């Protein structure tokens, strides 16, 4: 039983388009949602994160939209660049600990 689900598994967009990555979770006690990205042959790294007190978190071209009632969130990458090509992992944890539960990831390819 996957506690954090991601879709699609892979996504191809043209440079300049907006990529939308979806994530949903089961456990309502999760209260911290980081997104990690991973480039080939590199380590996963924190990209952006949100807590349920907010329904939106923006950092440059990356925006998380959060719907607590539906237990869904999405990552929008606006004006996608070829350098954004990576695998994006949605994760969740509870504030009392730092154990991350990861989704399976979405592989994003941005074509020039």
């Amino acid at each position, binding site marked *: 039983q996957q506690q954090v689900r991601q879709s699609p598994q892979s996504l191809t967009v043209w440079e300049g388009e907006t990529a939308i990555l979806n994530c949903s979770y089961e456990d309502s006690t999760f209260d911290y949602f980081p997104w990690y990205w991973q480039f080939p042959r590199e*380590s996963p*790294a924190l990209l952006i994160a949100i807590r349920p007190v907010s329904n939106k978190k923006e950092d440059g071209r990356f925006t998380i939209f959060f719907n607590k009632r539906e237990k869904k969130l999405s990552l929008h990458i606006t004006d996608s660049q070829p350098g954004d090509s990576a695998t994006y992992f949605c994760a969740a944890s509870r*504030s009392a600990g*730092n*154990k*991350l*539960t990861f*989704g399976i*990831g979405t592989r994003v390819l941005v074509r020039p």
Partner: protein
Amino acid sequence: GPKVLQIPSHQIIDMGQMVTLNCDPVSNHLYFYWYKQILGQQMEFLVNFYNGKVMEKSKLFKDQFSVERPDGSYFTLKIQPTALEDSAVYFCASSLGQHSGNTLYFGEGSRLIVV
């Protein structure tokens, strides 16, 4: 940014043998983690470690697994004996604090193939 180093990057080992995966965490970090990723699946939490002790472990952390960090050296994951199902990429991570919001910094992973 802060780096977590993992050694080896990959290893092939015969089933039943022992393997030790080494992790050099970020220098001032206090909390250490191992995650396991089987090909095509998500990264899954194995164990976290603080002040010389295992704080929490998952069902994936079998009796054949052990972790330690003797005298501030490498944080290690030892598997003895190895089984075919242990084939995976093992990611080490470290963080400064315990609570969520403390960023986990990951290494590049150690790819283990058990034959």
